[in-house]
């Protein structure tokens, strides 16, 4: 291990919590960042080949946000996000095969091809979606956190048995969601009832084509909004995963212990357009390049290769190769997976308790087993 704690970018890592983590952990983070980046590159290619339909929003540039925050919580803390959700799904541990297959609309997708790019759900990994309506996930995330508190406070045991413990819910939103009423109602409830939800604004500066200042009051001081609801506030740069972890981890720990709400203004940048169909006339190429100089993938790799010297060039190249192969395999899996059979899947997963006469079109049916949970009709 290297003795110096300053990266080439001049970053002092002497007090970094992340720097104190094991090589194994940080190398796993490196792999995760590469995976999300490679996954999105393949997603864009597949979209351009019309293998993916609908609206599709990629995560390039923002990778450190999902990874650094999700690595700051426990595996069983609930997580919920908006529609730019592939990165969160992968960071939470979803197999890229099932994420890609979902976008291809296949039965092997995490939502059996019924949700698509904007609706990544992963029950075993406690990811409660992928939500398409801007800010609709913020009251729901508040409710997830409310339920975790209810679990230890009222039930005094886990909702499905076992021990109850203090949890936090990570509830992600884009800066565009700052202007939706749903968020403000949610924040008021969270502040009022001391609900352990942490709203994480992935502030990439644009809601679609509208620069934040054109749509949000006090955009330069979002802390004022959190303060209005009595919610703890934190803002920091989201381009470096170690920075994200360093800021996020202590914040999470305090809010978990004290069971209160938090609001994080995570400053980040998306390299691509809002969605795949965005001509990006609202910003210059120079602006994109400025952020790319602080690329999250490069940032961590430089630290591991040149400062910490825990990762060799050969190991890093092998890691990149392995990730490329994994994502290639995910695309192949998605391509080769079967299309859903309308006769079996159109009318499934509508009701849990499928009574007679719920529809004039006929009876609802039980769907095929979900690839993540194994729950559903057995073959």
């Amino acid at each position, binding site marked *: 291990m290297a003795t110096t704690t300053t990266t080439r970018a001049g970053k002092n890592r002497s007090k970094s919590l992340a720097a104190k983590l094991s090589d194994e952990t940080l190398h796993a983070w490196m792999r995760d960042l590469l995976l999300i980046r490679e996954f999105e590159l393949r997603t864009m290619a597949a979209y351009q080949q019309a293998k993916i339909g609908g609206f599709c929003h990629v995560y390039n540039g923002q990778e450190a946000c999902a990874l650094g925050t999700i690595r700051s919580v426990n595996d069983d803390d609930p997580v919920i996000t908006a529609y730019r959700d592939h990165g969160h799904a992968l960071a939470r541990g979803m197999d890229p095969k099932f994420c890609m297959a979902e976008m291809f609309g296949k039965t092997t997708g995490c*939502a*059996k091809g019924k*949700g698509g790019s904007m609706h990544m*759900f992963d029950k075993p990994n406690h990811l409660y979606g992928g939500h398409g309506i801007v800010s*609709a996930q913020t*009251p729901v995330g508040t409710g997830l956190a409310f339920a975790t508190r209810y679990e230890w406070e009222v039930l005094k045991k886990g909702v499905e048995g076992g021990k109850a413990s203090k949890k936090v819910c990570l509830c992600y939103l884009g800066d565009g969601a700052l202007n939706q009423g*749903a968020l403000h109602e949610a924040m008021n409830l969270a502040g009022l009832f001391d609900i352990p939800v942490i709203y994480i604004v992935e502030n990439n500066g644009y809601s679609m084509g509208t620069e934040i200042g054109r749509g949000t009051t006090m955009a330069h001081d979002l802390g004022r909004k959190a303060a209005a609801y009595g919610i703890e506030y934190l803002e920091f740069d989201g381009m470096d995963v170690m920075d994200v972890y360093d800021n996020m981890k202590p914040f999470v720990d305090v809010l978990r212990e004290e069971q209160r709400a938090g609001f994080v203004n995570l400053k980040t940048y998306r390299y691509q357009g809002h969605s795949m169909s965005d001509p990006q006339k609202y910003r210059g190429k120079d602006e994109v390049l400025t952020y790319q100089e602080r690329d999250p993938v490069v940032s961590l790799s430089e630290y591991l290769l040149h400062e910490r010297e825990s990762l060799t060039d050969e190991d890093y190249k092998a890691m990149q190769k392995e990730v490329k192969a994994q994502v290639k395999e995910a695309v192949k899996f998605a391509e080769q997976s079967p299309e859903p059979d309308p006769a079996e899947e159109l009318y499934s997963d509508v009701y*849990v308790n499928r*009574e007679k006469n719920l529809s004039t079109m006929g009876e609802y049916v039980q769907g095929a087993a979900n690839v993540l949970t194994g729950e559903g009709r057995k073959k």
Partner: protein
Amino acid sequence: MTTTLPNPTDTLPSRTGERVIQFREALREAMSHEMREDERIFLIGEEVAQYNGAYKISEGMLAEFGEKRIIDSPISENGFAGMAIGAAMYGLRPIVEFMSWSFSLVAADQILNNAPKMLYMSGGQWGCPIVFRGNDGAGGQLGSTHSWCVEALFSNVPGLKMAIPSNPYDAKGLLATAIRDPDPVFFLESERMLGDKAHVPEEQYAIPFGLAHRVREGDACTLISFGRPVHFCMEAAEELAQEGIDVDLLDMRTIRPLDIDSVIESIQKTGRIVIVDQSWPFAGIASEVIAQVCERCFDWLDHPPVRVNTEDVPTPYSKVLEQAYLPNADKIVKAVRAAVGEG
């Protein structure tokens, strides 16, 4: 834990007896009984706790269950409906009280986009076991914004269930089922009926969804309704009986599922049908019933189906205009007479 769903073959306690209570008390009994059995259930809404309920439905529940389970929400329907949806996904069993279904419109995104579609969108991973309940319909001179009948609007959405009781006995039994059901249930009450009194058994019972209740037997004309207009139908049936017209009156009790089988069975006896629906006529529940009747038993009809809806205008304030706007016994009598060819 009483999470057992009722079967259509279950024997239910008698509808007749001496234990007369109000509609609102029947609702309270259903909630309280289920809450005693299952700690996952909580009630949230405006004024449900300290105020004892805007309409006194939850009176005394705060004292019994405490503030962690009977929760006063600020006036933010979209916020607390969405919050309850998250809690339901996590595994709790929320009951959300809307002071009026009219106010649920500001929560439309949550209750229509999230609750009923979560199971489908997540590929079967997460359902949403939740009850939304509150006052539906006009009748108190509240004007157009506070007099919504949401049944036609909301029952259009697949993934939800809808119950509309007309009397205290059914209110208790249907609400118990709604709370136990693993799917989102929209439970429509009426401010105008909360004080109605009838025998309600003390024991907890659950009425299966999708089973109409035959209020009155007859062979001249099938007359169906749900919720408050069932009472107008009963009034009309009395009057018609004096003219020698005996209607077969069915109270549908749930709209989704809809007991179309009982409707068809009745038509096979009467050859005629009148539907009384307190929502607007265009794309309403009555139009849906008529469509299904025509699809499934057209040949049994001796007369085109007749519907009685509220008039096709916003709800007026004036008492006179409001009376003219709503379905009533007189309109129903005329409709039945027309259907049996005596109009």
